């Protein structure tokens, strides 16, 4: 006997929640308890009174499972709203990464040249290393990290995706 799985597609969700203790465990726990996956998750409060947090989750799921994920999230008591930005259509996604690279001589020059192309900023430097800050879509960051790997990648820190719908609607 073998186990088969449905074809999944990535979705970016924006979840507005009460900023209260345990809320992240509630959301993340729902994903594990029901067997949904989380590719990235970011959270921060976004209102002036710090009462509401915005959680951005990138998950991948079949259409049928996606419908369940939205309904399951929506019925949690502290959840104000759940939006599937991917289904909504036009939206922008950004991620920030900090990338530490080792390099001397030609490697340093090459690293800086590539950084310029990818609009990465140097935010720390020693005689043998750089820390770059780069923002962009996931693909761009993946590519930049790939290039840095050839040069001498030491360490990567990524925020995960944040996303917002285009246009003037909320």
């Amino acid at each position: 006997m073998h186990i088969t799985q449905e074809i999944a597609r990535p979705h970016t969700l924006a979840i507005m929640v009460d900023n209260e203790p345990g809320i992240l465990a509630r959301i993340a726990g729902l994903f594990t308890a029901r067997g949904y996956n989380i590719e990235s998750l970011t959270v921060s409060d976004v209102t002036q009174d710090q009462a509401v947090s915005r959680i951005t989750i990138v998950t991948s799921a079949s259409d049928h499972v996606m419908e369940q994920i939205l309904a399951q999230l929506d019925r949690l008591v502290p959840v104000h709203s759940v939006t599937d930005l991917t289904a909504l259509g036009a939206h922008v996604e950004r991620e920030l990464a900090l990338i530490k690279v080792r390099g001397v001589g030609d490697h340093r020059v090459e690293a800086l040249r590539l950084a310029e192309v990818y609009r990465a900023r140097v935010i720390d430097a020693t005689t043998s290393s750089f820390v770059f800050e780069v923002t962009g879509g996931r693909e761009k960051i993946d590519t930049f990290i790939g290039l840095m790997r050839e040069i001498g990648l030491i360490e990567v820190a990524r925020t995960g995706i944040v996303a917002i719908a285009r246009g003037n609607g909320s």
Partner: protein
Amino acid sequence: MAELSGADILIETLCDLGVEVVFGYPGGAVLPIYDAMFRSQRIKHILVRHEQAATHAAEGYARSTGKPGVVLVTSGPGATNAVTGITDALMDSIPMVVITGQVPTALIGTDAFQEADTVGITRHCTKHNYLVKDPAILADVINEAFHIATSGRPGPVVVDIPKDVQVATARFTKGTGTPVATVHKTYRPQVKAEPTLIEQAMDMLAAAERPILYTGGGIINAGPGASQLLRELARITGAPVTSTLMGLGAFPASSDQWLGMLGMHGTYEANYAMNQADLILCLGARFDDRVTGRLDAFSPNSRKIHVDIDRSSINKNVRVDLPIVADVGRALEDMVRVYKSRRHPKPDLAEWWRRIKGWREVRSLDFPENKAEIMPQAAIRALWEATHRKSPIITTEVGQHQMWAAQHFGFEGPNKWLTSGGLGTMGYGLPAAIGAQIGNPGALVIDIAGEASIQMNIQELGTATQYRLPVKIFILNNQYMGMVRQWQELTYASRYAESYSDALPDFVKLAEAYGWKGICIEGPDQLESGIADMLAYDGPVMVDCRVAQLANCFPMIPSGAAHTDMLLQASEVSGEMDDSAKALV
């Protein structure tokens, strides 16, 4: 303004909410609450013998009265023991508020004595939960907890209160707890259906040639009025009615339009009608795997309308054509009104009923006669015969006896059938019967049990004795965990691994040791008189009814099979199944 301790605020708030009964067990972290309750003298506390039983008793109370069940237990083991009952209430949508003590705030996270992360542990087995760190918000939290537990899709809510919060004081004016009914900032269940959807549903129902009403526990939760409306809808449409395990009693078993329960151990006519229907109107049920059987073969040619208050139940297992998010009671009210106002005539379903009649003639609930031994089905029917005029409340444990009770005990009204459906918790029946008896002092309450299940909360015999509750336990004793044995017979070539009930107690002596009356029924000739003796005794009785050991529960749709692949008797059972069948529950 007077200041009260957190414990006093809790008790005052519970009284304001109309709480009359609390099921619980004291311990270090709830002593201030127990003292406040003792001083107030306004709440009846039922002392159970194990916290799991407190939760099931609260479920039994809730299911039989329609009021929320309230549980009070201590921190650590008190809370963890309650987890099974909390999960049970979540699965079966039972309104319940569980108050747990917690170690003092300053000790949280230090592995203190009797500390457990109750909020963490119960996060996914509650509808919602709280850790209250300030007595000033306690009244509001309790009010909100009751609102959440009882509204929308009902369920359990846990409120964890550290001991220092119970002792610390805060301002409190009686009756000032914020009413949350309509104003909650995020929680607003949709109770009223979109009118156009109701109209569409009724047009579909009126046009259907082979309709069926598939009803569930949601109708019981929606209150007795919903059951009346279901009967009215059935009357004006002439449609056949089937129900899940949880919905039994919403529609009278004596009605001509009743097909019996559907699903794994449902009747032939109910499952064939589901399979052949051209329209399924699902009312407060959730297309559970026990009901649907193999999904790709489930009612292949029907259009499906699903009324459920929980949006996440819709399209979860089965895709439906017309989803309606609403309280099923409100939706039924609208449906009956709309059906009448649109002047739909009663459809001509003669051909459909002719086919149903053919399926009924299979007589799928028949069982082999046995003169030497009591057939368990016959025992249930004898029990029904002797008690149905008293309109008894029946609770069950989990297993064969539960399914036989569901098949053979005809229910005429809602709130009379209390069983653990979703979680399937052995040990549910006795404490649930205790809770039901507390909520319905004059009622005849019978726990139909198995000899294995009853031992899972047998300590509650003492609770019934203490409160002089005339609960009856009717054990179908076949000396096996019968459903496990039945599956082993079907799937594992009758290799009965650990399913034999060895070293059973003498149930009569056990009953007597707790101050109960014990009766043993050993053969068919004693069945009627034994039941009569049980009913004649004005107090708690445990009946040890010895039944045929190897009887199986049929009809049965094996896991992962279609409704039409029903087994009607043991001779159709193959000895060993392949791996994919073994992997199904």
